[in-house]
């Protein structure tokens, strides 16, 4: 069977989401910062919903240690995550406009790299990097929406993962306490819960629903 056309994709999404909501989704743009367990799942959820433009940012390559929770395959080992995720997204939602940057975000490049998107999604692994991104985005872009994740390691209850509106435009997902340690690793199912919370909050913001 040949690939559906763009019009066929849009019609199928409109049928499920309604014409008005689909228009909002197609007009939206989201930056996904970090393409690991959180970011790869978030990007796929947003692409499936028909978000218009995704900006994918990660400096790293796919490693065997990623396969326990990240949306990559053995055949993609060694590839840049930006490249690997673009391959998957092209096969899931070929008409989502994707910009990919294989770069490490820092205080100096965030102001230029994240200036174009309405919604910024934090999906890093290290707590220092999470804090750096959140602080820099809130300082540089107080009017943009920022959705971040913290606390999803181990085997704590699924029900402890939540979304909290910390500030007017800043939302935090996760249980906020479960850190990765030598005795507490990351399981795909719990990371996906947090990723789903982040993706869900982003979809709600696109739909003008501001509460967590």
């Amino acid at each position: 069977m040949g690939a559906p056309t763009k019009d066929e994709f849009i019609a199928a999404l409109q049928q499920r989401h309604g014409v008005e909501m689909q228009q909002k989704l197609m007009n939206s743009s989201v930056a996904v910062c970090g393409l690991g367990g959180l970011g790869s799942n978030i990007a796929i959820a947003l692409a499936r919903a028909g978000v218009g433009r995704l900006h994918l940012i990660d400096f790293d390559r796919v490693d065997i240690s990623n396969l326990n929770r990240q949306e990559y395959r053995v055949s993609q080992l060694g590839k840049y995550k930006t490249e690997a995720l673009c391959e998957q997204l092209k096969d899931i939602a070929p008409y989502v406009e994707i910009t990919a940057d294989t770069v490490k975000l820092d205080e100096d490049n965030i102001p230029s790299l994240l200036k174009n998107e309405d919604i910024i999604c934090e999906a890093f692994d290290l707590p220092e990097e999470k804090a750096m991104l959140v602080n820099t985005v809130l300082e540089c872009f107080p009017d943009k929406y920022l959705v971040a994740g913290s606390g999803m390691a181990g085997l704590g209850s699924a029900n402890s993962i939540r979304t909290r509106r910390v500030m007017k435009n800043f939302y935090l997902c996760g249980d906020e306490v479960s850190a990765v340690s030598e005795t507490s690793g990351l399981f795909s199912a719990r990371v996906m819960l947090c990723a789903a919370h982040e993706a869900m909050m982003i979809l709600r913001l696109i739909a003008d629903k501001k509460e967590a």
Partner: protein
Amino acid sequence: MVKINGESLDTGGKLVSEYLLEHGYDLKRVAVEINGEIVPKAKYSEATLKDGDTVEIVSFVGGG
């Protein structure tokens, strides 16, 4: 009284950096908001917690 993460505390007059260090926060892992505004990292040792302030401290943990 200063309201920090929902709790009323008698810490008026203290610098943000003093409060964070005294309570064991790692300054590289936090974001601090006072009355809905982010406190820039560079201002932690200048910004003071004042009576009536509402403060939110987010401390990030690893994993993603």
